[in-house]
């Protein structure tokens, strides 16, 4: 490889190196070293920082959703919505219930799309020992997955204004007039895909996965329903306690790693895991009926490989909840600023973005990969500080600790085989390094 990368080998022995991790979002690498008698893992983010959060400083508050969207090409809807909410909270704007509901719908569609992309394209093929989704022998499975993927994308495109980076999500609500009836129609197609979802979920639930159980702190939003997007909701910790969003932010610590372009986010000075598995383990009873039935089939333990199965169960849940939310919204019309009011059914008005207020806002929601937190400070209508704590930044430490455990446990496999299982492990966390790098190593706090 490259000269400067070889230089460090002598310091302590590298026992495993994945080179560039394959089939993950962004560029990363996992290196395991033997330093004395201790095994240490380095989860290295090699994705370049794009300094989007620094860019927002001094910019008008209404630009936040537009710029935050560019953080990630898979969960852009989550970033846009969180950004809109953080700004609204800072400016003291309370969006109408209809706006919150439609945002939840977009969030659900986004999570469904992202899970589908992760399971079908990134996670399943390598676990089955294949190099690509195109080599999967179960053609019906691929067809079912592709249908779900494109239908959820169409839903986002229709209501978000574009399939990737949605311009319709703005501070205060939505930019375009939203009619509940049309919304119902657009969801109908998804309803016919229940069979596809079932086929997919059942396939994933029957897969054999490695055992790697280890206790650690887990976090998930705790809302009235199964957590995705809610305006005001505390976070549940797996010690039985709940904390507010402000407490969560104050418990986060940004740690610079000399080998990674992104900082790690420690919770209470140590590791925490977020994502589909903590969500299921902390909120299983709130799953929709069919998803819950699937969830009962699995013995949920803190094994990161189970993230894959948790995501599969969530697929079913998201599908069910999208259909329900759509029905609830069928009578609602969301009217943007300056639009003549159509005057039918329930109305939700979109609030204007005030340009001269000050304040601080925190928006937390359950993005596909876990708890996503945007913090925004506004002064005189301009953004003073903007921070994004992504699930991957929080999970980075857990990925490292699990990798060490994995090496200890499976060392007899030999490093060639172990390398592949380690990559599978990292992939199960569904890391997004483009997201993680929004907490770049040069950002000051």
């Amino acid at each position, binding site marked *: 490889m490259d000269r400067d990368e070889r230089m460090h080998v002598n310091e302590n022995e590298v026992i495993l190196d994945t080179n560039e991790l394959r089939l993950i979002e962004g560029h990363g690498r996992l290196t395991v070293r033997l330093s004395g008698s201790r095994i240490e893992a380095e989860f290295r983010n090699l994705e370049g920082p794009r300094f989007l959060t620094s860019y927002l400083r001094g910019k008008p508050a209404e630009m936040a959703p537009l710029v935050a969207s560019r953080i990630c090409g898979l969960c852009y809807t989550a970033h846009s919505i969180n950004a809109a909410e953080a700004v609204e909270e800072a400016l003291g704007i309370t969006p109408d219930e209809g706006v919150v509901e439609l945002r939840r719908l977009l969030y659900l569609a986004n999570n469904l799309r992202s899970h589908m992309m992760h399971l079908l394209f990134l996670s399943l093929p390598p676990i089955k020992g294949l190099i690509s989704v195109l080599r999967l022998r179960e053609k019906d499975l691929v067809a079912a997955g592709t249908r779900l993927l494109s239908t959820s994308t169409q839903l986002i495109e229709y209501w978000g204004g574009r399939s990737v980076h949605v311009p319709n999500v703005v501070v205060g609500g939505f*930019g375009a007039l939203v009619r509940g009836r049309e919304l119902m129609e657009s969801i109908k197609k998804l309803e016919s895909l229940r069979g596809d979802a079932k086929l997919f979920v059942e396939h994933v639930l029957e897969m054999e996965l490695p055992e790697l159980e280890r206790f650690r702190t887990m976090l998930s939003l705790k809302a009235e329903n199964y957590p995705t997007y809610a305006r005001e909701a505390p976070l549940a910790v797996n010690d039985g306690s709940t904390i507010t969003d402000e407490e969560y932010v104050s418990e986060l610590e940004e740690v610079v790693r000399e080998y990674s372009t992104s900082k790690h986010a420690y919770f209470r000075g140590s590791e925490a895991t977020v994502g589909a598995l903590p969500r299921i383990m902390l909120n299983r009873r709130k799953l929709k009926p069919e998803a819950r039935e699937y969830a009962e089939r699995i013995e949920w333990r803190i094994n990161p490989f189970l993230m894959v199965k948790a995501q599969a169960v969530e697929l079913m849940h998201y599908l069910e909840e999208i259909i329900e939310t759509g029905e609830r919204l069928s009578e609602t019309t969301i009217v943007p600023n300056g639009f003549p009011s159509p005057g039918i059914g329930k109305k939700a008005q979109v609030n204007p973005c005030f340009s001269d207020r000050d304040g601080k806002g925190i928006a937390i929601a359950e993005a596909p990969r876990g708890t996503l937190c945007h913090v925004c400070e506004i002064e005189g209508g301009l953004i003073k500080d903007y921070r994004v704590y992504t699930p991957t930044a929080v999970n980075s430490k857990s990925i490292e600790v699990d990798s060490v455990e994995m090496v200890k446990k499976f060392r007899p496999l030999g490093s060639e085989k172990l390398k592949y299982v380690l990559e599978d492990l990292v992939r199960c966390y569904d890391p997004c390094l483009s997201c993680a790098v929004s907490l770049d190593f*040069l950002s000051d706090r």
Partner: protein
Amino acid sequence: MKAAFYSLTSCEGCLTTLITNLGPNLEALWRIFDIDYFKLVREPVGGDKVPRVDIAFVEGAVVTSLDRRRISRIRENSSFIVALGTCASCGNIAYSASRSVDLTRRRLKDLEVFEAEPLSSYVNVDFELSGCPVSAEEFTEALLRLLNGIEPKQPDFSVCYECKLKGNRCLLEVGRVCLGPLAMGGCGAACTSVGAPCYSCRGPAIEADLDAYLKTIKRHGIEEGKAMSAIRAFTGKKITELLKDGQR
């Protein structure tokens, strides 16, 4: 024919757009090309090695030392390079964002971070397909042209043109900063159609006229400073061309 799909520093939204919007047709690409490298779709043949190909599609800006090495290897091994998306063609938001950050502590253990640049700052790029994200239809059209030995072309109209066709209300007329008249079209006026102003995410239109634009916004009572700040957001390196023409 051989093709490859690479990703440098980006959100990978361009490749995901192609993957999701091509849907079941994605597999058809393999019937046309031999594809050894497609980030997010297959494990690369030969690990980190850059394969020799006829057409390379590259998304993302050049930010890290790794990106720099990779883009020069891609150039050495590819007959035709298509820059995929605004990061690759203009540098996107990262271009100006990275210039307002103090990069003196840029060195990590084995990686260095530089000011973001579009591909064309380092290598010759044969064709640029702009957009944040890139449009799957434009990609398909460019691909068909390339396969038939015809040079692909960029849209020669502005976002305003498409916006007018859609019958949208003009945002400049209600006093909002909208870059439609300056922006390269082809997006189907996605943002303005949902009431959001255009930020020219595809870079400047071929015949963008900054002076005329500034005169127009003045007439609508829009502050020039606000518009200039918006222009600098996505246009990245291409802003310099625009400013040179406008002598600003």
